[in-house]
């Protein structure tokens, strides 16, 4: 048993991914700059654009950017939920649906027809239907409508400082808390 003074020495394993997002939250993650060096003392990365590992192994923390727009997003999200003890929703798209959810007022069939038949310069006469392609969901969803989510980091994107503060709180066993200055919505 550890005494209350001690913290576990094992590095926590962290996976990150972007579903239907712009990778802006991941860019913001990199914006931690030199703090990444501090963070890397505490964590190691599993599946992430930083490692190029294709599938998520057993992890302590999973971080998801982007909303759920298609069947592949659902599979990836479910894999993260299965593999990660704590799942974090990162940024406006994952938290609320964000930009991809702007299509939610439209019928997805109309959207596809418009894109593949009606746009000027389009020469195809079919909507791509290869079995390799993930199908679109009728609506873009925030990730917490598809799986259980433990924490939310709002912002578009959340700042590198906010992500760092949130993760270091979590790792140290403090309930994560962002100050007003660390909230950024524009």
């Amino acid at each position, binding site marked *: 048993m550890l005494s209350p003074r001690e913290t576990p020495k094992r590095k926590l394993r962290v996976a990150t991914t972007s579903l239907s997002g712009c990778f802006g939250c991941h860019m913001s993650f990199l914006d931690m700059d030199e703090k990444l060096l501090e963070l890397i003392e505490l964590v190691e990365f599993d599946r992430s654009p930083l490692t190029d590992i294709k599938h998520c192994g057993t992890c302590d923390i999973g971080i998801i950017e982007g909303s759920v727009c298609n*069947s592949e997003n659902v599979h990836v999200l*479910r894999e993260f939920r299965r593999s990660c003890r704590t799942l974090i929703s990162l940024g406006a798209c994952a938290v609320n649906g964000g930009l991809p959810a702007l299509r939610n007022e439209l*019928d997805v069939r109309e959207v596809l027809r418009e894109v593949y038949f009606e746009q000027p310069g389009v020469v195809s006469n079919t909507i791509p*239907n290869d*079995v390799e392609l993930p*199908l679109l*969901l009728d609506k873009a969803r925030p990730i917490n409508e598809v799986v259980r989510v433990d924490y939310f980091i709002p912002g578009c994107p959340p700042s590198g400082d906010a992500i760092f503060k949130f993760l270091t709180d979590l790792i140290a066993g403090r309930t994560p808390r962002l100050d007003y200055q660390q909230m950024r919505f524009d």
Partner: protein
Amino acid sequence: MSLVHSSAGEVLEPILERYSRNPRHLMQILRETQERLDFIPAWAVDHLAEALALARTQVQAVIDFYAFFYGSPRGKYRVLFSDNVTDRMQGNTALLSRMLSKFGLAQGQVSGDGLVSIDTTSCTGMCDQGPALLVNSYPVTRLSSQRIDQICELIKGRTPLEEWPAEFFRVEDNIRYKGVLLSTEMVNGQALKRAVELGPQGMLAEMKVSNFRGRGGAGFTTGVKWEACRNASGETRYVICNADEGEPGTFKDRVLLASFSERVFEGMTIAGYVIGASKGLVYLRAEYRYMLEKLQAALEARRKANLLGKDILGQKGFDFDIEIHLGAGAYVCGEETALIESLEGKPGRPRIRPPFPVTHGYLGKPTVVNNVETLAKASLIAQNGGAWYRGLGTKLSTGTKLLSISGDCDRPGIYEYPFGVRIAQILEDCGARNAMAVQVGGAAGTCLAQHEFGRKIAFEDVSTSGALMVFGNNRDMFEVARNFMHFFKHESCGFCTPCRVGTTLMCNILDKIANGKGTAYEMNELSRLHQLLSTASHCGLGQSAGRPVNDTLQKFRPSYDRRLSQKDFEPAFDLDAALAPAREITERDDADAHLGTDL
């Protein structure tokens, strides 16, 4: 275009003239416009905006804010079923379906010939004689299948409302138990005379001696409020009577206005005398539109008797008169600053307090806003004295309280009790034999379970604005809370995010639980959202919106638990069905074109 302009002139000009082209009267101008035209067309918005020197968007904002203003045609007959939980218990859902199927309509749809539209509305204050509906703002009570069939025939025959059977529109007082307010004989003007004998300071002293607290719900000491307003700087002051009785399950003010309006008007005049106001305003909820003409006639009679107008009772310089303003279907306007905004002709969004209305109220002037019952009782205190009044009730809650009792009991109606009465006593009196729960104070109030029936109605124990809904052993308290939550979602004014988004999220979760897809996760979310709403909302609506859920979660937890899925989490929607439109357009049906339910 010429047709449009001639009707604009014909219809709108007389209304504009009647209200002196004063933009402050925009609500009343829109109401009368709609009473003439059945809705408020775009050309009327243009005309009114120009005539009142308002931006078009300001007029449009008011139309959009209030549930009973329509910017597009809603049918010659606009039927709105009251949808309080008490109406539900009396079977309004089946009656609504019956009427919809008779006309082949969906809820909210307008019939192809523009004859009729059918929808639901928040509690109309007829809980003791429901189920009820409003047709073009007039209440029809005691609905039955037979009555619904008759109404359908009358509508199909395009029978004007005036020719419908008067019985349909009969509204009973149902006074079951009289305390001092309802049993004391009062002669018009007698209390006012007494107040004038005492003088403003003397009358104020009586109010303070009585330790009388406001009956709208918050329980602020009325004498202190009047004194603060009297001492506020400025020349012009106002008295406002809050008759926007929107709290589901409350109908005591309806009865006071129907049968004791003299006492209310007298109380307003006394308040005006004490604070030095020369104008009083009654804000009457749209659901009580049917009383308008009668109330106006009562005011006219008081003017003739020199109880209103100039030099009242021969007192040089004691001038006071009362105007009645109608609301247009917005619960939030029961909040006093939202009510003031509405009186000023704007959307009813609560103001930031302080400053309070006693210093910065109507048109920025010192204003006293009192509930109907408060004002009626002020006249009783004037007549019988503060010391007498103080002898009734409890030390901290003097006097009596009118309760509107509805739900599972033999004798629903109005009961006037001294403060300190126990719930069990009330239940015995109204004939509630198998009560499992009572909701005291309306949707925003407190839900009490059997083990709490020994508690007392008083500000220091269970405080209430006057509603008491009884739920029998066979009721489902989860569904009660869900009904209330949908009410709050509908009535949220949308100004602050915690309330606007929070009420919707709580409704979504309750609906998800109702569909058997809720889990322990959603139960935690409900508690978290209640916490957030109660601390971060701008006004009392959002602050109390989560209460029915929180109370029933604590006291009737099994009614939630039995609906929960044992899974870790389930989406509220079917993921595979969400792929169906894409499958259709790509003509795919392979294994990868489907999604299973497993994580």
